């Protein structure tokens, strides 16, 4: 039973160990993050000045599409699945994930999905160019031939996510250590459990949408083709029925990470644990019934418009509860500000700003002016980059010592934080101005009055991009040459079963379940 990892490359290909698979997910997602980041650099370089300088408009559209797809499905989602793999068994006192072979499969199909997607860049007619939201009929009747590969890729990603979620649900519901009741689980486990249910519910909807596209493109059906009696607006409803829960799939596990880090560095228990759980569940429920707030300009009937406006405004309530709870946790704690805490605090501030713009966007009449402008781009980067990506980075710094038994360099970590924080804000804050002043999104070129802020934004993007290279450097340096650490608890205030294990965490942990009181 207690054998170590296999030798050589076979260890990684055939592994059923949750830590190995977690590691694979994390490295894969980082590779995708760099690839998607490269696409973003192309976009920002082209938008540095008015006029077309570097790429042609058709290629620009391929870049925005690939950037969005790679970041959402390749970078953010796998990163959190990787964290779930590493941490959930250790947090609930389980020896491994419940379905280890499926775990291997759900990871190993991902590289194929993204290889297929990336290969479209080299095809005749180019890569998908219809945006990550792939609205029909631009993505069906008017799509480049590579759309079939895109659909195949999305199917594989969906299958991977569904398998990953089933595994998480099975693990959390069945493998908890004795005494680990649901209401004792760390919030990271709670948020992932709820996320997994969201994924199982909406990934099939996405699969349905792309399958109907496949039919329209190749077999002459007209699901989304008005000329054949179909309905292009139906596509948007189906897409956002998946798409809005998707944005919470991205952010809920990030909430979980932050709910672990803030108490640790405040040396004070999380404020309002049970209300955090209920708020998460409320957000998850609401996320199913607000999708058409992405469609305030399609010409819905007045009553539909009103309903989706009211429902969307409601989401701000449980989201607010979360923020208030984090701040109350910090209040009268004894705080220190190591790198994970810096990222967590930045998360709270910047995510809240994204929440504020979300609230503004939910006001349907105002959304008429904001919709499809850079204001929306700013909104979702505040929630997805400063939200999900910052919390992912915080998680890596927080748990890295536990994973590899080495301590990262605090100065370098802080340096990365400040470059990322400043770079991020220089990039995305001016985009609020651009959007309000009237610059639409997904524009390859723009009018002169938008020139100055675009240049600022591009400079910020290059700074932010550089911070990611520093991140890579920090992580590798830690693994190769970090100061060894051995005490089980790396952080004074950290709580939870993972910190009762030896450091670095052995290949197999909790072969006999711990007792939770």
């Amino acid at each position, binding site marked *: 039973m207690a054998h170590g990892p296999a030798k050589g490359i076979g260890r990684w290909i055939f592994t059923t160990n949750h830590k190995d698979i977690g590691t694979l997910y994390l490295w894969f997602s980082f590779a995708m993050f760099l690839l998607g980041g490269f696409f973003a650099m192309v976009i920002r370089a082209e938008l540095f000045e008015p*006029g*077309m300088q570097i790429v042609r*408009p*058709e290629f*620009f559209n391929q870049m925005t599409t690939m950037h969005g797809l790679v970041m959402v499905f390749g970078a953010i989602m796998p990163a959190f699945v990787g964290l779930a793999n590493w941490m959930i068994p250790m947090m609930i006192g389980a020896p491994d994930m419940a379905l280890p072979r499926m775990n291997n499969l759900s990871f190993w199909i991902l590289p194929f999905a993204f290889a297929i997607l990336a290969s479209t860049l080299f095809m005749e007619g*180019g890569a998908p*160019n*219809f*945006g990550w939201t792939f609205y029909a*009929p*631009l993505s069906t*009747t*008017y799509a480049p031939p590579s759309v079939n590969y895109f659909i195949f890729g999305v199917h594989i990603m969906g299958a991977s996510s569904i398998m990953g979620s089933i595994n998480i649900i099975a693990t959390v519901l069945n493998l908890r250590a004795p005494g680990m009741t649901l209401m004792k689980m760390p919030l990271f486990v709670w948020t992932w459990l709820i996320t997994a249910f969201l994924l199982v519910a909406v990934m099939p909807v996405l699969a349905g949408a792309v399958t109907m596209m496949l039919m329209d493109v190749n077999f002459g059906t007209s699901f989304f*083709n008005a*000329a054949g009696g179909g*309905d*292009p607006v139906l596509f948007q409803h189906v897409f956002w029925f998946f798409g809005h829960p998707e944005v919470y799939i991205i952010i809920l596990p990030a909430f979980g990470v932050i709910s672990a880090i803030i108490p640790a560095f405040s040396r*004070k*228990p999380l404020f*309002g*644990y049970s209300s955090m759980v209920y708020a998460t569940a409320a957000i998850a429920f609401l996320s199913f019934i607000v999708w058409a707030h992405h469609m305030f*300009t*399609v*010409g819905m009937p*007045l009553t539909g*418009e*009103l309903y989706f406006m009211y429902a969307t405004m*409601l989401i*701000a*309530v449980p989201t*607010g*509860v979360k923020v208030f709870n984090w*701040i109350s946790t910090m*209040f*009268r*704690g*004894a*705080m220190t500000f190591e790198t994970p805490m810096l990222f967590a605090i930045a998360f709270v501030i910047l995510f*809240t700003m994204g929440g*504020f713009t979300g*609230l503004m966007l939910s*006001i*349907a*009449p*105002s959304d*008429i*002016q904001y919709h*499809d402008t850079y204001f929306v781009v700013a909104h979702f980067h505040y929630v997805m980059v400063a939200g999900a990506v910052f919390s992912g980075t915080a998680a890596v710094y927080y748990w890295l010592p536990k994973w590899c038994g080495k301590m990262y360099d605090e100065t370098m970590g802080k340096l990365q934080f400040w470059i990322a924080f400043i770079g991020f804000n220089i990039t995305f804050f001016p985009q609020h*101005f651009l959007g*309000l*002043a*009237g610059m*639409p999104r*997904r524009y390859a*070129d*723009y*009018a*002169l009055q*938008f020139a*100055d802020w675009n240049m600022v934004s591009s400079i910020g993007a290059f700074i932010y991009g550089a911070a990611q290279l520093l991140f890579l450097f920090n992580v590798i340096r830690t693994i190769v040459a970090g100061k060894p650490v051995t005490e089980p608890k790396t952080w004074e205030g950290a709580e939870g079963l993972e910190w009762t294990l030896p450091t670095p965490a052995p290949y197999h942990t909790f072969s006999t379940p711990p007792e939770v009181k």
Partner: protein
Amino acid sequence: MLSKAKLLFARMLVPLLLLSVAGPVMAEKTRHWGDLNMTRGVTDVSRQIYDLHMIIFWICVVIGVLVFGVMIFSMFVHRKSLGYKAANFHESTTVEIAWTVVPALILIVMAVPATSALLNLYDTTEAEMDVLITGYQWKWQYEYLGEDVSFISELSTPESEIYNTADKNEHYLQQVSQPLVIPVDTKVRFLVTAKDVIHSWWMTEFGVKRDAIPGFVNETWARVEKTGTYRGECTELCGKGHAFMPIVVEVVEKDEFATWLSEKKAEVAAIRELTSKEFSLEELMTTGEAAYNRTCAACHMANGEGIPGVFPAVKGSAIATGPVTDHLSIVINGKTGTAMQAFGAQLSEVDLAAIITYERNAWGNSTGDVVQPIEILNFKQGQ
């Protein structure tokens, strides 16, 4: 301990003070950096939207100041390095209820003006005139319903400015061949649709944004209170020309509009006259080249070679060098299910004849065929 906290505060204060001095100076300086905020616009609706935007913005600012204020205070005072000892409270049902209920109440207050703005925005009744707006890849068509006036409005910024071989003019990417003209103080109903993919017609100053969706006709409206030239853009990704299909609306006095409309009608009649005229090959080639570059080159490219895999070449193509009727048919009727539009409804007979003649004789497609406008008319009527 406290003095240490004070020191930290003092250190924070310096940048804050600097910022508060620099802020207004910057604001003055940044004037040419374009607008930082939403426009108030020139219609009732756009002002309502602006007001809502400012209310919700200030609500967010107030909440933000409170929440971040507590947080930043805490970050400076409740530090381990200052010897602060952590408290251990972690629950309070009262507080939880308070911060659930209060935001909910604020939202209800917010929902009231938002609802009334939406009611106004949706009220398309009692319009004094109707304009049908049709989006195409990558231009707009405006049709004055009941007036028999209709024209295409497309980007007029030259390629040379886009590809940086000439200096960019003041209205770079925000100028069109023919603006939409509407009268001031008149409730105009816009019927918005598209013929290929989804576009979106956005005129910021009017507070109007409606998606143009093939197979649907959306309604919206504006009563503009100030004459002038207004510029907007397409806001739904519609392919490679998405950034290159701006909207320009000229709002003029009512009598000026009446004059414009009758001139426009006369123009339409004059173009119809030309249909029966006989043109020489040279004439058709010159007109054709210009019209081709304006209308077709976006996809088939100026050299006729298209973009492999997406838009076919016309140079040496079977249709452009084969039977004339096939060529007429694809250009006039388009090909459903592809990006090739039906140009019969967009272009005049003269332009169609010229373009087809041009395509059949340019780039080495030397068929020698000459297509006259009357043939186009006959073809249209014959089918």
